[in-house]
């Protein structure tokens, strides 16, 4: 457990910590984007690049959550986690409108597999 900063500690500390160390470092990028976006042309190659980087970052988060997963997901073996993603991706590549089916099939793979593999 990270302990509260002593001179700021008190009953409101969890709220203060949330604002300082989670809300601020997240929201700052959205604010900066509003300031910068006024100077960027919607059709510019710069925006294409920015969109490509953002897409890659999201794909990167997917990979990180699968390879180094949080909480209960870590109890599921890596090949099964990858299999669940592969099922989802396979369905999406087959028909891009089947978002719901792809999500449910990936989930069914993971939960079903975990049910079989994990003791208890």
């Amino acid at each position, binding site marked *: 457990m990270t302990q509260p900063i002593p001179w700021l500690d008190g009953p409101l500390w969890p709220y203060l910590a949330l604002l300082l160390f989670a809300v601020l470092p997240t929201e700052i990028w959205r604010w900066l*984007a509003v300031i910068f976006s006024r100077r960027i042309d919607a059709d510019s190659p710069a925006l294409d690049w920015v969109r490509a980087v953002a897409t890659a970052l999201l794909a990167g988060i997917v990979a990180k959550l699968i390879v180094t997963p949080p909480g209960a997901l870590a109890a599921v073996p890596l090949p099964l986690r990858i299999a669940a993603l592969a099922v989802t991706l396979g369905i999406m590549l087959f028909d891009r409108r089947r978002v719901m089916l792809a999500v449910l099939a990936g989930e069914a793979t993971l939960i079903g597999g975990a049910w079989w593999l994990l003791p208890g």
Partner: protein
Amino acid sequence: MMNPPPDRDWKRVALAGMRDALSLPAWVVGFGLIGVGSLASDVGYPVEVAVLSTMLVWAGPSQVIFFASIAAGAAWSAIAIAVGFASLRFLPMTVAILPLLRRPGQGIWVQLLLAHYVAVTSWTEGLRRLPDVPPQQRVAYFLGFANTCMATSSIGTFLGYYLIGALPIPFAAGLMCLTPIFFLASLSAGLRHRGDAAAIVLGLALAPICDRFIGGGFDLIVAGLIAGSVAFALRPRKRARPEQS
């Protein structure tokens, strides 16, 4: 085309956004944030802080890093930096979606409000759906869509705070995995050309490699910059001259 009174029109458009959100995405983000609620209860923070984190941070990965790092005993500065890097993607994402939402005469406060709702789901779904919405209706549509996602997510966080410990591991793991599975499905649904496909494939491949070799929370942004730049180089040219095609 018949023009209904602007007031009714605004509500009708917002309701359309709400309906589209409830068609699937709002439920998925709501389920995805159950895990955040359970992490928050794990570190002994009040349920109000868990739900507020969903409304004010509005970024699943940032919230996961925040609560999981506290549980792991990380320094506050390290937590802020890790959250900042995890959220850096909102800069390009917001820059990319604002042109779709911007209207002549729109104040900076409206844009700051709209930017707050930028997160993975509202961004991927917004980029996919907003071009089909008439420009003067997009703000209402987007706010209807995003606020619905935020409402279901707040409920999910609240439930997760009390619920997840009671679930058997396969189902808890399934809830944790809903986020990456839905992110990937949304990304593939928005595929337009080989540049997008390259960004997804390279991002998936590079992130774990960078995670291994680059420390200090910089790994994700390095992977994203490399993969995104390569994908950008591979994209088809927009204004190719007709005789070349």
